């Protein structure tokens, strides 16, 4: 058993390490060594911010519950990246030429600089990302709980303690993001330091997951063949499961949409892209990274179901399997891997959202209110932008915590994540229209987005509160 304080200490020192890394690469980015930081390799690793703790912990849980379904979540992005030369390249090219800073900026500027549209997109993005951030908070708190109490059964835990921990994590992440995301205002909105830190985290989480996978498959499972032979008895149906119906297709399409539409993916793929030719490398390296992340998913799920006592939380198999076999160092490494996949998502998502909120909501209001005053130098505006960003980062993380708190951290990781995917997928028609359809009007895009958002909010976002609010539960069961 590892004490909670030690784990927290390790997590904090990991964040400090990240901080140092981001700080120094920010400096290097200006000099000659900067070339490496703008290389296709770093770009690809940064894109793998797609693999959050949902991938790290949630994929195993989803494999244990729904069999092959987790494949769909990685096949969608693979198809998009393999076909980079038609959609993605145009997106990146437009993003570079027009200095696009966010999804909201792209959609509004392609439809005649409509600010109303930008505000709508920003709202959808913020609300759509909220469950996703809550998912990361839940993963961090649950994993911390599991590793420090050694409990294999998914216990209820101490709610108050959980909430306090989640609040602490959210506050720490807000601090880190503010320190790095808002040091200066750059017209292209690129953050080399942060991207370097994210790339480093991508390596950490991949190695962590692979080492757990190796241990599980060859250490305790006895090779792939033996594990798959036990699949049926574990209840994972791999043969003739008929799981390739509408749900499969839907998830492939949703995840393909999400790799473009998620604010954080848009940020790293389009906004932070140093060069559109980097896509050539990313087109094969990113799918390969995804493949690496999911090779061991099924075996871990099967072994976990077979060897761990019934009632263990499948979302935590990556941690509980090493723990059950007294591999504390490995479990700690796995915890760091999960922690880094969660932090990288939180950092990039809150930076991307803060850019949107400050550019499209705070700034227009602030400029309108100050219309009478004359601003002699740019310093005032710069400070205003930076402060509005800092404020937005705090607000975004506060919303994530609020969602975590209100939903009581309930539900499987993959379930919460899909709500987010569906939310941001509303952008896809507007983005495709922005790229290819010259005659599309801003009114049409606005109405489409608003309708999609309303349906999503009513059918997916609202019901996610049903476990904690009697009013919502009643509404879901009986209608309004």
């Amino acid at each position: 058993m590892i004490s909670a304080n030690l784990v927290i200490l390790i997590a904090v020192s990991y964040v400090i390490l990240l901080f140092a890394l981001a700080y120094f690469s920010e400096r290097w980015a200006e000099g000659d060594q900067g070339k490496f930081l703008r290389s296709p390799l770093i770009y690809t690793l940064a894109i793998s911010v797609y693999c959050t703790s949902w991938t790290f912990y949630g994929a195993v849980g989803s494999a244990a519950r729904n069999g092959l379904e987790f494949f769909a979540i990685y096949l969608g992005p693979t198809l998009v990246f393999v076909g980079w030369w038609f959609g993605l390249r145009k997106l990146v090219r437009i993003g570079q030429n027009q200095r696009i800073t966010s999804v909201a900026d792209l959609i509004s500027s392609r439809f005649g600089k409509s600010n109303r549209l930008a505000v709508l997109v920003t709202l959808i993005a913020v609300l759509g990302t909220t469950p996703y951030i809550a998912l990361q908070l839940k993963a961090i708190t649950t994993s911390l709980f599991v590793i420090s109490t050694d409990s294999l059964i998914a216990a209820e835990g101490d709610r108050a303690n959980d909430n306090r921990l989640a609040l602490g994590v959210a506050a720490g992440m807000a601090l880190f993001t503010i320190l790095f995301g808002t040091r200066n205002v750059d017209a292209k909105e690129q953050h080399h330091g942060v991207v370097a830190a994210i790339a480093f985290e991508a390596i950490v989480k991949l190695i962590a997951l692979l080492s757990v996978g190796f241990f599980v498959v060859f250490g305790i499972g006895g090779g792939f063949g033996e594990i798959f032979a036990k699949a049926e008895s574990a209840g994972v149906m791999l043969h003739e499961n008929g799981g390739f119906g509408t749900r499969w297709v839907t998830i492939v399409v949703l995840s393909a949409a999400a790799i473009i539409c998620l604010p954080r993916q848009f940020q790293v793929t389009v906004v932070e892209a140093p060069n559109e030719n980097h896509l050539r490398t990313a087109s094969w390296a990113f799918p390969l990274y995804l493949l690496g992340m999911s090779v061991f998913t099924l075996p871990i799920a099967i072994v976990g179901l077979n060897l761990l006592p019934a009632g263990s939380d499948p979302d935590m198999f990556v941690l509980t399997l090493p723990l059950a076999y007294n591999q504390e160092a490995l479990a700690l490494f796995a915890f760091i891997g999960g922690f880094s996949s969660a932090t990288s998502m939180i950092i990039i998502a809150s930076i991307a959202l803060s850019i949107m909120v400050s550019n499209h909501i705070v700034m227009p209001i602030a400029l309108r209110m100050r219309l009478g005053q004359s601003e002699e130098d740019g310093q005032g505006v710069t400070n205003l932008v930076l402060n509005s960003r800092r404020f937005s980062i705090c607000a975004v993380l506060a919303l994530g915590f609020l969602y975590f708190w209100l939903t009581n951290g309930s539900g499987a990781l993959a379930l919460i994540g899909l709500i987010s995917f569906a939310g941001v997928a509303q952008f896809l028609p507007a983005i495709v229209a922005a790229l290819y359809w010259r005659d599309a009007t801003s009114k049409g895009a606005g109405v489409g987005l608003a309708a999609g958002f309303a349906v999503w909010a009513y059918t997916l976002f609202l019901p996610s509160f049903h476990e904690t609010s009697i009013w919502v539960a009643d509404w879901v069961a009986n209608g309004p």
Partner: protein
Amino acid sequence: MPVVGAMLVMPPLVLLFDVQVDVFGVPLIVAYLFGTWLALIVASFVLRKRLPNGDGDELQMADDKETRS
């Protein structure tokens, strides 16, 4: 290529492999999905330098848009 890939992992083609057969102890469907995945990666790796710059792929674009919607 993404069109072919999409067809391969979508029903009805994927259903062909959803049967009670094992390849080297691994269920066929698992082997098939990973195999397709790997094949797409390799194809993409081979093509990465060959594809021209520019927007001269309008025809293919139209094709792909249909399959995506």
